């Protein structure tokens, strides 16, 4: 286990280094002068020179890369050209809102996906199975921004069951202000006992979370079904059948645990995908997360902010994969060998 741990950590560090270099390279390709974007079109040559000096744009590229890496390590993610605040502070506010949305969506997706996978495997090739398979292919094929618009129009606009947009009713900020601990609104509202904001956030979460959950639910249901059907053809399932266990209890008592191993590694993949898919959903539902921040940054060609978002999501992805590999290596020693 220690050797596996060391090798896997080393790999992850290498990937992180590559991610940093690639992010830097992409950002250097930007047309236009970041100094102009920061100082404004009417800046005097002196102001431009000051901006260039401030961002180190006169240095040779390797020096800029070195400074960039040093800054990242020291917690300096650059200064947003748009909000004029440190990118790190902006991300610190936006990321928790995305986590809230994606966390809620994944909770729904894991519960629904595994249940539907069990249902489909139990009735392999029969009506419920075909229904689940059809539904799961549709869920992975639907354009998420279109689904978001449709749900918003129908359930918030026409029927008025749910709020149209936002994270919670902003008038609550004055009547029952929220004390921030984790910056994740729903968690903070829960631990400080702020029920008005808690229920309002929960209510606002329903539609965007369901939309983000569609894709992972479909993938998890398909994967669970496939793994369960394979498991239920194994020798141990024959033994259990001979011992008189019914098909349902074979699936849920014996086949489900080994079948969940591939599903677990899938969740890491789906997690990062859901964050980025969430960008589109955040744009529709005006959710104050990374996606809205990225969209605003893109519109104003705010390179440090875009680099920050890109880097953060890539790091989250590497971390999620690392955690899953380590957990799997711990649970199932066979996966430690490459």
């Amino acid at each position, binding site marked *: 286990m220690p050797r596996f741990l060391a090798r896997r950590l080393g*790999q992850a560090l*290498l*990937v992180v280094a*590559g*991610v940093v270099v*690639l*992010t830097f390279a*992409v*950002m250097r*390709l*930007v*047309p236009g002068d970041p100094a102009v974007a920061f100082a404004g079109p009417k800046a005097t040559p002196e102001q431009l020179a000051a901006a260039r000096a401030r961002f180190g744009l006169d240095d040779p590229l390797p020096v800029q890369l070195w400074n960039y890496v040093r800054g990242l390590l020291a917690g300096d993610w650059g200064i947003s050209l748009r909000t004029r605040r440190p990118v790190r502070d902006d991300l610190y506010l936006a990321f928790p809102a995305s986590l809230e949305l994606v966390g809620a969506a994944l909770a729904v997706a894991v519960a629904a996906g595994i249940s539907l996978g069990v249902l489909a495997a*139990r*009735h*392999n*090739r*029969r*009506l419920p199975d*075909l229904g689940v398979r*059809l539904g799961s*292919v*549709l869920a*992975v*094929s*639907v*354009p*998420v*921004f*279109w*689904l978001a*618009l*449709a749900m*918003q129009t129908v359930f918030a*606009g*026409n029927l008025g069951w749910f709020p149209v947009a936002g994270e919670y009713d902003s008038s609550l900020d004055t009547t029952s202000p929220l004390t921030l601990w984790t910056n994740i609104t729903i968690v903070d509202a829960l631990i400080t006992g702020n029920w008005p904001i808690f229920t309002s956030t929960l209510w606002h979460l329903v539609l965007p979370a369901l939309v983000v959950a569609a894709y992972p639910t479909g993938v998890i249901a398909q994967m669970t*079904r*496939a793994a369960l*059907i394979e498991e*239920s*053809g194994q020798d141990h*399932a024959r033994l259990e*059948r001979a011992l008189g266990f019914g*098909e349902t209890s074979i699936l849920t008592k014996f086949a489900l645990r080994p079948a969940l191993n591939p599903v677990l590694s899938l969740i890491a993949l789906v997690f*990062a*995908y859901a*964050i*980025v898919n969430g*960008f*589109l959903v955040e*744009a*529709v539902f005006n959710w104050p997360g990374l996606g809205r921040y990225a*969209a605003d940054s*893109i519109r104003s*060609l705010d390179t440090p902010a*875009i680099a920050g*978002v*890109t880097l953060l*999501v*890539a790091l989250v*992805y590497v971390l999620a994969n690392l955690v899953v590999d380590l957990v799997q290596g711990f649970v199932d020693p066979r996966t430690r060998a490459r």
Partner: protein
Amino acid sequence: MTDVTPLGRRLPRLPDGFAALGAVLIVAVVLAAVLAPWLAPYPPDEPRPLERLLPPSGAHWFGTDQVGRDVLTRILYGGRTSLLIAGAVLGVSAVAGVALGVVAGYAGGRVRDVIMRVTDVFLAFPALLLSLALAVVLQPGVNTVILAIAVTWWPWYARLAASVAASVATRPYVDAARCLGVPAPLIILRHVLPNSLTPVLVQLSLDVGGVILTSAALSYLGLGAQEPVAEWGLMVQQGQTLFSTNWWVVTFPGLAILVTAFAFNVLGEGLRNALDPRRAVR
């Protein structure tokens, strides 16, 4: 094994026509895209201010959009854009990825390690994210979309090809060729490559839907195809404020994306079950 269940719980086994349905839909979508200039009832980019936002009718089956263009016509032309993007992205990714992957798989050792670490870096960026960053940096347009998605897509092919090629490289006929003194490039080209292609073809068919969804998402964000090009994601974006009042402007382009992605996904799954029995689930 479900046949041992008690009679009372048994539901009829149904024929599985998903793959066939996918194939039929794909033929329809491709034909519609190729024949768009002949099938389309109106010119694709001619604004008619007097015919703005007409609901679906005999003259305009899918209605007209905010500048009076026929929605059905633009969907037919949009299919050309989407299929062109998907073809170009997958062509570039498969060629680049398979070339690197086959070399990595055959050579093994250090070469493979280096190439796989490079793919790890690219895979750490979810496709839409790196495409987003690239699309900001470059001029938005169809070519940028192709480049941006291809950059994030090739590593999957490199990994797939590497793992297949590594197992092909241990086959007796490859050993035989090596013993006969056939140079490595020729072995790769004549023996390893052709025998590594089946999983790649299956993956290609599975990926068309994903590429179409990603390119539509980029267009929806305004980073992809630009007016007056007909593109489904762009049509949804431009009509989104009209959803509650003029549903057809947004609904039909979205359905076009859904149906196309669905068709390629089910066909890909069917192909995988037929051609790659190891990973098949029945």
